[in-house]
């Protein structure tokens, strides 16, 4: 599945399903499980519908009635007025960036005894 049509075309995926949503929502809108399921179901149908290498199925779901989100798609459709100017990128830190401080404590405890076996390349 993809929400970046130009990139998927460039890399040449064998088959793909395109959903025209802001980045960070490749498989749907938050807290809309029925919509998420509908999207996946339609994407999976493409396994049999697409018969040529490089085929892309366009999924029929709308993010919103207007195109405002397209002005700032990399911020998840946030209002452009709220967005900082200039370099939009997060600093390229080389230490793990945990969602929650408690995640770090748990992960360090699990790894203190040796590798957990499920963090491959990050032990």
């Amino acid at each position: 599945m993809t929400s970046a049509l130009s990139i998927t075309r460039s890399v040449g995926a064998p088959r793909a399903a395109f959903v025209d949503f802001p980045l960070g929502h490749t498989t749907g809108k938050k807290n809309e499980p029925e919509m998420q399921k509908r999207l996946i179901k339609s994407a999976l149908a493409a396994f049999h519908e697409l018969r040529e290498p490089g085929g892309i199925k366009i999924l029929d779901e709308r993010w919103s009635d207007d195109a405002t989100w397209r002005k700032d798609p990399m911020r998840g459709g946030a209002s452009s007025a709220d967005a900082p100017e200039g370099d939009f990128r997060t600093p390229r830190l080389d230490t793990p960036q945990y969602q929650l401080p408690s995640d770090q404590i748990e992960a360090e405890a699990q790894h203190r005894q040796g590798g957990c076996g499920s963090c491959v390349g990050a032990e």
Partner: protein
Amino acid sequence: MSETQAGEPVDYIAETRANYDALGFPPYQWVESSGTPPWSPAEVPLHEAKIALLASGGIYRRGQRAFHYKDDASYRVIDTSVPSEDLRISHFAYDLTDAREDPGVVFPVDSLRSLIDEGSLGSIAPEAFTFMGGIYSARKVREELAPALVERVVDQRPDIALLVPV
């Protein structure tokens, strides 16, 4: 695509080039594949198919190490019976707000389980594989990460594989 959604799909390649140019950086080198993409026909009907799940949205499970933001080519193995409240997100290149509230927007394990429950999908491989996209070294991905993931996925003998990039 619905005809009523306004505007054309965002051209992220053009946008990134313009951003880098404005910041005075050299142009970003997107991966461009030439020739016909590889192809295997889907032979098993969906209601019998075993699906493998891979996602590049920076998903990790509580107890695992988070991703770092500097060409992190590591990956995580996540049991596909994982409760969604144990899923976490770390990624430097997209707005994580919605994904952290509902990981189903980038890691559709609940949707897949639901399709299995209703009988429209066969089964899901026991392990999903996650990594963090935005790895600037295409060589690292091509020569290290991708072959390692292919081996892990093939070991689970799925009929089809779903890739969910961000």
